[in-house]
């Protein structure tokens, strides 16, 4: 078993792809066929990291999906960073349905990932972060990203 675990679940409506692990030069996406689907839902919550070689493989793999509508769910920060930075990482027919935004409290050191969902915390061109994000002890948390950089993909 490689460093990346990919599970495909195909039903009448869509192909669901669930990914867990690390995307790097060792990944072999060729074994996971994306062609022939009208809709693909990619669950990315379990992706831990991705490097430059992994990005190259990802873009090649995504291009095999043809004209399918691809929806990305629960994108972790490592994926959002690549979406923002690498042109083509998010396919032209791709759409982020939900993604995590890291929060932290500098005093207590607590961290939390808050899921931003399309239609709730963000829309086509705007972001509406939650009013208050608190940790388990009630401490107010601040966003652990540079907003103008992290939410860039929404404002494209």
């Amino acid at each position, binding site marked *: 078993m490689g460093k990346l675990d990919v599970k495909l679940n195909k039903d009448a409506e869509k192909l669901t792809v669930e990914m867990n692990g690390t995307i790097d030069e060792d990944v072999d996406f060729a074994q996971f066929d994306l062609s022939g689907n009208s809709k693909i839902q990619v669950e990315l919550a379990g992706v831990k990291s991705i490097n*430059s070689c992994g*990005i190259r493989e990802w873009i090649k793999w995504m291009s095999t999906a043809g004209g399918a509508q691809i929806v990305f769910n629960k994108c972790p920060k490592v994926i959002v960073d690549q979406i*923002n*930075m*690498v042109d083509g990482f998010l396919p032209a027919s791709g759409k982020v349905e939900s993604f995590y935004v890291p929060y932290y409290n500098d005093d207590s050191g607590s961290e939390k990932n808050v899921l931003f969902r399309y239609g709730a915390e963000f829309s086509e061109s705007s972001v509406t972060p939650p009013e208050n994000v608190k940790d388990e002890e009630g401490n107010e948390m601040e966003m*652990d*990203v*540079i907003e103008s950089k992290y939410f860039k993909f929404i404002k494209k």
Partner: protein
Amino acid sequence: MVKKRGLSIRYKFLLLLTSLPLITLTAYLVLALNIFEEDKIAYVFDSSSSMSGTMATQIKTQLNGVLGTTKPIFQEYLNQGRFSSVSESIFQNEFMLEAVVVFKPENGIYRQVALLEKIPNQTAQVLGSIQRQMTNYFTEVEALRRLVKVPFSDDRVFIFERVTDEANTRSTVFLVIAKMSEVSEMFKAGVSQKMYLIAQDGTVLFGPDGMPGHKLQNAVTPAFLTRGNAQQVAQGAETARAANGTELLVSYSKAGFGDLTVVTTVQKEKALGAMQILIRKSLIFFGILIAVTVILSLFASKGLTGALTDLFAATKKVSEGDFNIRVPVNSTDEVGSLAENFNTMAAEVARLLDQTAEKARMESELQTAKTVQETLFPETRAQIGPLSIAGFYEPASECGGDWWHYCQIGQKIFLWIGDATGHGAPAALITSAAKSASTIIERLNISPAKALELLNRSIYDVSKGRIMMTFFLASFDLDTGELVYCNASHEAPYLIRKGEGPLKKKDLIPLNDVNNPRLGQARDSLYEQTTVQVEMGDAVFFYTDGIPDIQNPANEAWGEREFVKALVAANKDYPSVSDSVERFVVSFQAHRSGAALVDDVTFFMVKREAVL
């Protein structure tokens, strides 16, 4: 140093194979010979004792026979005081008897008083010739009552029998002269062994030629002769040394008639003659056995030592540096396995040596590549007009995939930073290609977007899509402070506006208004650019993604949060670019704590200073 070789293992093996049976057989032979000798001696003793016993019995029987014949004659003489016609008749009919002489003491001297003889006057002549011995004989017969003598070296036996009256006051001595030719011949006939009939003092009565009349002690002195009469046993055997030094096996049996004893002697050497034959034959057999063993050992050892010799020669070759030597594997035993393992080991050593040489060559080439690549980077500190520049670069291995650069074209400063896919030599080659292409592109005096389009084609043609580069190219106008930039999916630099108060995180402005495909992703990609105004005191921080990935010895990544914090802290008071870079380096080195880099670390900072 080659040690002097001792005895070859083949000869040791040979020595072992031959000495083992040799020692074993010798020990066996000595043991067997001892047993054989003891057994043979016992056998000789047994047979000679048996013979001496038989002869003693025969002597006793014959002498008793003679006495038995003459007893009536004695009795009649004692009764009548003369020999009667009956006695005469008995005497004449007994062919063995030559004479019967009667002696009686007279004034202490025995005098002849009666005589029976076959040949007239012969007895007187005989007795006259031994007159002096007769005196001794009478003395002896006084003590022993019965005496047997052979005074001449012939077959005539003189038997003295002393008879006393009832009061034991008057003695009569009868002398019987009898011919015992058969017995005499039997004592002469011995070849392998000699037989003697001796008296108590050792005088030989019958025996081989030359011995009768002499003492046995002249030839040999058995121990039983030196013992007193009381200690003598009836029959026995012993070893004794002859006068000439020959070792003899002696056995004896008392005849039970007078003081006669039959003695047989056998030369021990002759008795054990069979043993000499056995030894000789055994030695011949040993010789043949050893010869066969040597021949067989030579064949057997050749198989074993031949393989070992091959191995020895091979190891010598190896010690001389020839690892391509192989030994033939001719068996499946331990030696065969040893040869097989040697071949495997030699092959493995040869492979490792090749690998080491190859590694050394590659390291040398990498070192050269590193030296060459270092020339691709600019001075880390520069001041071009109002623009001050400070940078830092450290590859994760000998060669890196990051590259940064600056150059002035007219009134514009071009600022380049890129990161090839992965790191190491392949990535370094792409950065070299990028540097080469940039040298040409710089001369064209074109916009950042056009420059990246050309650079993209160059990299695509070099890598064929296998290696890509993220890239950020900006041109800073020295006159206007306008910064035109084009991003090819690279980490967006941060614009740090000079503010009134300390710098805060929210003051970092990512230059991400445009983004384009990575260089090398597609040959004909088009690139867009945009413009941002850099005011006096503003700075721009360019970097690659290796910075957040910096790990400490516990493999904990620095992370984007700490990276941003360090960047803000380093520029809190809007210092010079040199100070800013130094502060930032101190921050990440504190986290790194000497750990190896997982990715190349590259960053530089430019700042628009007031024109002096």
